[in-house]
């Protein structure tokens, strides 16, 4: 079946299901959803994989309940719509609070990630030659393990809904990581890594991968830091300042600002798997989430990031807005149905409109509330060096090793790859096995320094898990260097 015919079939089915009484119908037609993964491990090509998917996902809202169905068989479009409608009708038999998409206007538009060189168009041998060069750059006698990982993704999506919206998206992302490992003086494996990041501008394709600043030129630094790490003492338990470089700061933001501000979590729709949130509907406009230095945005009008996609899977244009304004919680990551439910439940307008955060990872998953780009805005506390200079007793930490978060995101524990001790305004030595833990509101209340624009980069997340059926999503986090005081670090003896 041709692309045109598929789209006609979709339109006909949307009309039919709507005329039968559906509250709302939409369909996402993935013409192409491709992913390529290459992994060099100790120089051996351990992954040389491409995945190609295409299909249609159909969502029907019937008397306040969602039904969903997906098919990868173009000849099964009618059946897929019928199944989604039947699922919605069945679901509507148990509805206490009917879901509603509200009144939406037809949205017509398109979006394309800013790709100059499509990684899928680059010859595999050229890609492998590039990876091999990176791998060679990582070689040293003391290094036991080396890893070079890249992943390319592209999605060509056509969206239609019963409000007359028609949106076309061409999304592309690239991800890359280099890592080296070596044994420390106690025989424990230590690692140091670096992942491709974005400045928020530029192109999202192959050129990012080969840019020395964004990815390709970090081997020497990573190796020298590992060399220091394996000779380092372990971090001792104690309270001290913690300075998070973006490699760690983005995950802190992700886990303790992003996830707790997903409105479906706040409303209790994720309890059986991901968990809830310490935030409730009364928190908005009142809750002091952090110090005055904390301002956090969603999307942030970042041109080049996995969290920039033009229109969400409700058909809502992606919006740039504040989640936290100078320490006060003001908004959430929202989709249309969740906004309507929240406002209805609160009996007032908590949220003026959808934040454009309904996202599905593939055609065979239904959209849920996700992060887009969740960003800490740059501050006025200068460069990383200036923040260190203002620190009496602390550590600078980078890149996660482990992360474990309370079910309502009220507390957390992180392990990092590396710490640099800071005494009286100077980095004094490297420390290994750094961990820190805290309680979310107390922690952000202790935010004492936010780096300026020179410290701000967009870290890319390729593996955010949420939802049932489970979905892995790609997200961006623009973060500067950030400092927190009086944090519990290390482990008690």
């Amino acid at each position, binding site marked *: 079946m041709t692309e045109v015919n598929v789209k006609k079939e979709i339109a006909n089915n949307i009309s039919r299901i709507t005329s039968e009484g559906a509250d709302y119908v939409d369909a996402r037609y993935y013409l192409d959803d491709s992913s390529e993964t290459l992994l*060099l491990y*100790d120089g*051996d*090509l*351990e992954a*040389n*994989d491409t*995945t*190609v*998917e295409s*299909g249609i996902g159909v969502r029907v809202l019937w008397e306040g*309940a*969602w*039904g*969903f*169905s*997906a098919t*990868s*068989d173009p*000849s*099964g479009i009618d059946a897929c719509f019928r199944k*989604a409608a039947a*699922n919605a009708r069945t*679901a509507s*038999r*148990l*509805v*206490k609070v*009917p*879901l509603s998409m509200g009144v939406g206007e037809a949205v017509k538009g398109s979006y394309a990630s800013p790709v100059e060189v499509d990684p899928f168009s680059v*010859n595999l041998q050229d890609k492998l030659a590039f990876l091999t060069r990176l791998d060679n750059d990582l070689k040293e006698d003391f290094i*036991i393990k080396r890893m070079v990982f890249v992943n390319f993704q592209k999605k060509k999506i056509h969206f239609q809904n019963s409000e007359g919206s028609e949106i076309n998206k061409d999304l592309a992302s690239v991800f890359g990581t280099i890592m080296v*490992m070596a044994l420390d003086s106690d*025989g*424990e*494996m230590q690692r140091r890594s670096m992942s491709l990041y974005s400045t928020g501008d530029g192109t999202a394709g192959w050129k990012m991968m080969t840019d020395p600043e964004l990815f390709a030129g970090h081997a020497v630094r990573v190796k020298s830091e590992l060399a220091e790490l394996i000779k380092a003492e372990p971090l001792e338990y104690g309270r001290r300042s913690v300075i998070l470089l973006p490699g760690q700061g983005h995950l802190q933001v992700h886990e303790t600002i992003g996830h707790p501000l997903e409105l*479906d979590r706040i*409303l*209790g*729709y994720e*309890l*059986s798997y991901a*968990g809830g949130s*310490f935030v409730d509907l009364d928190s908005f406009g009142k809750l002091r989430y952090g110090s005055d230095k904390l301002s956090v945005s969603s999307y942030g009008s970042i041109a080049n990031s996995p969290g920039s996609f033009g229109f969400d899977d409700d058909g809502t244009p992606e919006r740039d807005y504040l989640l936290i304004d100078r320490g006060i919680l003001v908004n959430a990551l929202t989709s249309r149905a969740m906004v309507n439910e929240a406002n209805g439940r609160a009996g007032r307008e908590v949220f003026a409109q959808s934040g454009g955060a309904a996202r599905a990872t593939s055609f*065979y998953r239904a959209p849920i509330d996700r992060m887009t780009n969740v960003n800490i805005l740059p501050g006025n506390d200068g460069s990383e060096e200036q923040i260190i200079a203002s620190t009496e007793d602390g550590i600078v930490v980078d890149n996660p090793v*482990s*992360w*474990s978060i*309370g*079910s309502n995101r009220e*507390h957390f*524990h992180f*392990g990092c790859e590396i710490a640099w001790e800071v005494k009286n305004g100077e980095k004094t030595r490297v420390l290994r096995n750094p961990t820190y*833990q805290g309680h979310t509101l107390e922690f952000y209340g202790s935010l004492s320094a936010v780096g300026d624009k020179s410290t701000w980069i967009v870290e890319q997340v390729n593996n955010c*898990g949420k939802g*049932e*059926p*489970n979905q892995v999503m790609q997200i961006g986090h623009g973060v500067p260097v950030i400092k927190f005081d009086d944090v*519990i670090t290390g*482990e008690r003896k």
Partner: protein
Amino acid sequence: MLDANIRKILMQVRDEAAESGIQATLQLHHEKSHLMRIGNNSVSLNTSEDLLRLDMEVTEGRKQGSQTYLGAINDVDTVRGILNAAREKARMASPKTYDPILDEVETSISEDSQFDLDLADIDPGMKVEAYRNIIERLGGQYNFSGSWSSGLMQVYLLTTANRNEAYHRGTDQIFSIVLKHPQAKWELTHNQTGWRASDFTVDKTIDTLSKLIPVFEDNDGFKAEPGEYTVIFGPSAVAEIIGMAVYTGLAGRSWEEKQSWTTKYKIGEKILGDKISVVDDPKNPQTFMFGFDMCGRRRNIFPLVEDGELMNLMYDSATAAKYGKKPTGHDTGSPSIVMDTGFGPADPLEAVKDMGRVLYIPALHYMNIPSRSKGIFTGSSRFNAVLVEDGKIVSPIFSSRVTDSFGNVLGNVKVISSVSESVNESNTYGRRAPVAMSVPSYVVSEGVKITDSADSF
């Protein structure tokens, strides 16, 4: 059974590839999945997917490439195209420094002993009525959420090494419900698992939650200050700890590459407490039983830890090739990890009646590994966690963090339940791949480190 036309197409392409001297593995994965989500006492999503995936891997000497296709398979040309794409990737690949071990279906096998037509074709309306029943009987004043995933999975494996066929068909389900107090915010949960529709009953959930509700309604939360405690770990927590210990400690790759908490030990040495025995047993019916792995090797009972001693390490095909070992049938997403039961009474409260103050932590939320080398894990209590004194439940406990080592927690075990329980560890991030562990219904450990606690549930 497997669609006859698809089987014919795949065998034809296999034969063509074999005749052309191509070394290839063809793996078909078909899932027919259904999932119902509950949120705020309503069905929040009712979803069905019918998906067919074909994985092709081609080996040319030391070079390998693979292609995965998700879509319809109606003709030979589609499959030939996927094979050619994988072959092209293999041709252009850089060679490995070792010889890959070629996949081979050792013997033809067709298994469906855990297939239930009633579960494969379950009526979503039945799930609606079950949730309605539970909500109405336990009380609509609470906030209920949950999910219920069920489905059919078929795997069909061919290699160009021979014409043997490996086929697996099975059904599985995992049911969960969370009961949350809208003001006090404590959360209770109950899960059910199995491969038959009849493995689920409404009454099991009602009975379990009914006993816990008064404890949480009538008592304030207990804040466990950081320190060492005697802890009863319930089945989900035991499965999490054992599963993570196996993943980080008993995989050949981690051990060979000195990234494991077992690296300093040799086979036969003591790595855990005397009471701990763990085996990968693909014939244990409390797990989802897979008789072959995705390289075509038969899976047999495989001792991992016996009375605390390291017995074997699990080698996947690539690791075995790289380190000169034999693959052990562990190229699988569905291992059958079984921890041996002990001699403790069925009731965990009876087991700790002389132990004074004890924390009962049935499940650990969001477990992770700050140090693989030291085997240190961290995670926090969540559902159904209570304080027990002299064998009696006295109050719920606030969210508490356990940060400790496998060596300590599994080395200081006082009591292990004599009753085993199946714990479903599946996720649905990629394709349907059911995983369940069989573990004792509780384990009591002394000196467990609580490193943080919240003032809330």
